[in-house]
């Protein structure tokens, strides 16, 4: 019988097969091709190596960047928050001691770890990629098996360049059809999570398939794979194709010459065989999909933007009912309110989900020539220093600044508020990030997850809005953002 994409990548990395079969099988030992490191989940792992007198086995397969704690203003000054500064300085000292390549704040290649890996060409099809960060699933967009790990596993990978893993089940997410203008990859993944739930992917590797996925750019595929973890899945993947190769070619660490040809020959084998079967298949219709937005405090609590805030009574399951009641109370929302009547205080365009150049372009296309609602503050935080430079070369920074948005330096920023970019208690935010958990963006902050174009339209109108809600005058710009 044929194999799925996930199974092919898995099988190609088995160092040692676990003994036994089925439920009683021991885990396989898998080789890790790329280990991405950042300041938050690594200090205790480096310390563990030091205490045990162990080396970092493959510094040539390891790369570090500073992202979670980094300020997005005044980056040439010492970091004001002492504990943040200590954590960054600890990463710098550890990388020096163990010989790990590091892109520090101020470096042209610094940025969110999941933006940096792909843009350097280090993320490639068929690889195993890990990082002490749950959004490592992002790299699955290249047909890599990429997953987030805890600090103990970070230390394990540092010491052995392997991980012990129990085989996953496989789930196909079939998205057929054509997205309408103003509907994006973010809406696909929010709709998938609303459909299968925050635990629906638990124990599975998801493979996104179908004509709507094939039509997506790499930046858009990364948005989808990024949020696989919000459905509980360990990883999400898209089979590589010409779109992938075109993105890869010429990147600093992409293969060259004969290596490129050998790589492409291998990458061409990385697709699910026709006679392979998935444990579960889920279908989503791209033709009828509308912009999606969350109303609650987990990413599964989402609805179409044209819908109303649901009532707890809409949920049959007692746990879901209680969760909805609690979420409405935290979010300060009344059941039955049209989503589009909800006024926001802040718009955040950024995070490893939506901070790549295409995200910035799509948002800029919406706001160009329009005025921001004066009561709304808008933060634009590029995913990496490289994305920021690219955007500035295209003049996007001017579009955002003229609109009245704040143009910041790269990092995770308000996605999780480990730096000064946080919401105040009660402050409501339309955010292109990935988690609407209680307090995620700042204590008491209220988050609605949206796509970059919905974020931009919301900044114009002050209430949750889709691009089609703006006056028809310049909707010509909508072409080309259907991806």
């Amino acid at each position: 019988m044929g194999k799925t994409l996930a199974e092919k990548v898995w099988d190609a990395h088995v160092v040692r097969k676990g003994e036994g079969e089925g439920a009683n099988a021991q885990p396989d030992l898998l080789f890790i091709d790329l280990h991405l490191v950042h300041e938050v989940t690594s200090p205790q792992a480096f310390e563990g190596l030091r205490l045990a007198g162990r080396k970092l086995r493959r510094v040539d397969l390891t790369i570090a960047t500073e992202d979670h704690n980094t300020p997005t203003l005044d980056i040439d000054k010492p970091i004001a928050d002492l504990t943040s500064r200590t954590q960054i300085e600890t990463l710098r000292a550890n990388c020096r001691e163990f010989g790990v390549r590091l892109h520090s704040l101020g470096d042209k290649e610094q940025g969110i770890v999941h933006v940096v890996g792909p843009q350097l060409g280090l993320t490639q099809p068929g690889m195993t990629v890990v990082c002490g960060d749950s959004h490592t699933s992002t790299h699955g967009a290249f047909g890599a098996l990429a997953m987030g790990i805890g600090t103990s596993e970070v230390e394990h990978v540092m010491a052995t360049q392997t991980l012990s893993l129990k085989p996953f089940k496989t789930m196909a997410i079939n998205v057929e059809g054509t997205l309408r203008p103003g509907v994006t990859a973010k809406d696909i993944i929010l709709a998938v999570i609303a459909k299968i739930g925050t635990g629906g992917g638990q124990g599975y590797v998801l493979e996104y398939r179908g004509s709507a996925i094939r039509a997506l750019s790499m930046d858009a595929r990364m948005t989808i794979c990024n949020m696989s973890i919000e459905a509980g899945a360990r990883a999400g993947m898209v089979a590589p194709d010409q779109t992938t190769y075109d993105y890869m070619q010429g990147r600093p660490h992409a293969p060259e010459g004969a290596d490129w040809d050998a790589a492409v020959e291998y990458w061409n084998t990385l697709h699910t065989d026709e006679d392979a079967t998935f444990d579960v298949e889920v279908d989503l219709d791209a033709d009828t999909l509308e912009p999606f937005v969350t109303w609650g405090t987990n990413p599964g609590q989402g609805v179409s933007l044209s819908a109303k805030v649901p009532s707890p009574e809409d949920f049959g399951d007692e746990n879901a009912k209680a969760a909805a009641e609690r979420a409405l109370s935290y979010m300060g929302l009344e059941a039955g309110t049209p989503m589009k009547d909800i006024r926001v205080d802040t718009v955040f365009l950024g995070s490893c989900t939506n901070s790549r150049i295409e995200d910035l372009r799509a948002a800029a296309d919406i706001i160009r020539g329009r005025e921001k609602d004066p009561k709304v503050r808008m933060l634009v935080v590029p995913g990496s220093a490289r994305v920021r430079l690219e955007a500035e070369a295209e003049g996007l920074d001017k579009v955002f600044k003229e609109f009245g948005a704040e143009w910041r330096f790269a990092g995770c920023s308000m996605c999780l508020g480990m730096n000064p970019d946080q919401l105040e208690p009660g402050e409501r935010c339309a955010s292109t990030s990935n988690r609407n958990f209680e307090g995620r963006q700042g204590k008491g902050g209220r988050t609605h997850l949206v796509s970059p174009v919905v974020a931009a339209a919301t900044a114009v109108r002050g209430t949750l809005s889709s691009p089609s809600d703006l006056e028809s005058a310049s909707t010509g710009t909508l072409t080309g953002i259907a991806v």
Partner: protein
Amino acid sequence: MEAFTTHTGIGVPLRQSNVDTDQIIPAVYLKRITRTGFEDALFAAWRKDESFILNQAPFNAGSVLVAGPDFGTGSSREHAVWALKDYGFKAVLSSRFADIFRGNSGKQGLLAAQVAQDDIELIWKVLENAPGTEVKVDLVSKTVECGNVVATFDIDDYTRWRLLEGLDDIGLTLQHEEDITAYEATRPSFKPKTIPAKVEAS
């Protein structure tokens, strides 16, 4: 890692689903560079509310957390497990755990026991009707007892074995170092290396 066979301690009913890692430990506490001392960070936002269960005796002395489904969703932060352990929890019962959280628990000797939701409901009732009731979690027999409720729980065999033996993962893997070296020799040349950097330093 300390071996785990059985544990008996006060049960804490946490009637809530989707307890995510940002609730277990908010990001602001992740700036520390130590592996211990996170007890104050556990459920930090909720503990500001006097009615929160861990602010009430005898639950504040609890060591077995009995939670709703989808416990530990969200981030990969192992700090969530460290915070639960530092507070004094030895086991968490839930009908469904997020994968990464469950993996992290297994590495740190915190037992993540998967119990059917119907049994969780029965245990919640016992703990709410008689606060301070102890829960016995037995990893050898994979059973949990609370008042008159006796239930079984699921845990994968490999994690169970490692917990029972208190084994160090890295040490186990390094017993197979020859296999790793042999695998490394077969990797194709087109796979990327981070060093030397193919970008200018700035």
